[in-house]
């Protein structure tokens, strides 16, 4: 895994978060939509070009934020890391009492098919990992599956 500061390729910052109680949901949205998210977009060109929020259909109260980045290394820039180090009192309160971050990931774009001028009403995220030891074996299996599904 290469270091974030070395990666000048495009990608996304993906954050899954969950309010600790339904009572905090309104505060969570207000904080995210008027402080946390906009503060990142305000960094301007070279940082986060767009930011979108989604709600999980699989788990209650799981909220996803996707920030598109022209270069992932911006995630290591002081302009961004300072935001995380110097949180407002409200943001501290959110993280300490009202919110748990399920995961936070910087992901490098590997491939893209199709295009989308506006955010999709629904997205599906497939999470998987790969071991290289038997890659060829699985590749052979894939060819069979691919043939079968394309003929279905």
């Amino acid at each position, binding site marked *: 895994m290469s270091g974030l500061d070395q990666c000048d390729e495009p990608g996304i910052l993906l954050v899954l978060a969950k309010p600790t109680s339904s009572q905090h949901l309104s505060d969570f949205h*207000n904080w995210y939509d008027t402080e946390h998210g906009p503060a990142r977009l305000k960094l301007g060109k070279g940082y986060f070009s767009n930011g979108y929020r989604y709600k999980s259909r699989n788990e209650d109260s799981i909220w996803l934020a996707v920030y598109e980045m022209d270069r992932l290394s911006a995630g290591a820039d002081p302009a961004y890391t300072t935001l995380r180090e110097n949180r407002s009192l409200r943001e501290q309160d959110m993280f300490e009492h009202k919110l748990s971050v399920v995961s936070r990931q910087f992901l*490098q774009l*590997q*491939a893209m098919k199709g295009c989308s001028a506006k*955010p999709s009403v629904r997205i*599906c995220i497939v*999470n998987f990992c*790969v071991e290289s030891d038997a890659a060829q074996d699985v590749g052979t299996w894939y060819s069979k599956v691919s043939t079968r599904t394309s003929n279905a």
Partner: protein
Amino acid sequence: MDADLAQKVFGIFQNEFACSRSRLFKLVEGTSKDDNNRAVYRGIHDLDGNGRDEAHHLVKLVDNAFRRRGSTLLLQSVQTFDFHRRLSASEYRSPVAPSTISSKSACGHSNSDGSKGRL
């Protein structure tokens, strides 16, 4: 080698989801459930609308096939999300201390699930 394999797997999902856009990402930094030196991938598929939940059926089939191959390729999870809102820099408001925040005064209005609460 692992990247090539991931591209192939990505192709399976992209073809079957019939989505307007599919993107494959590789984890560079962050939290992950996998700590066994595997390369971690996320395929993000923009679905065209409702009625795509049948894709989960295919995912189960693929998952079963993966499991039969052992741990070479591990499907961790499939998650579906509905669009909520686009963030905007112009909506930035100076932070205020938590003691001055109340859900009613801060939002003025909220839906039953608390979403899109700010007028």
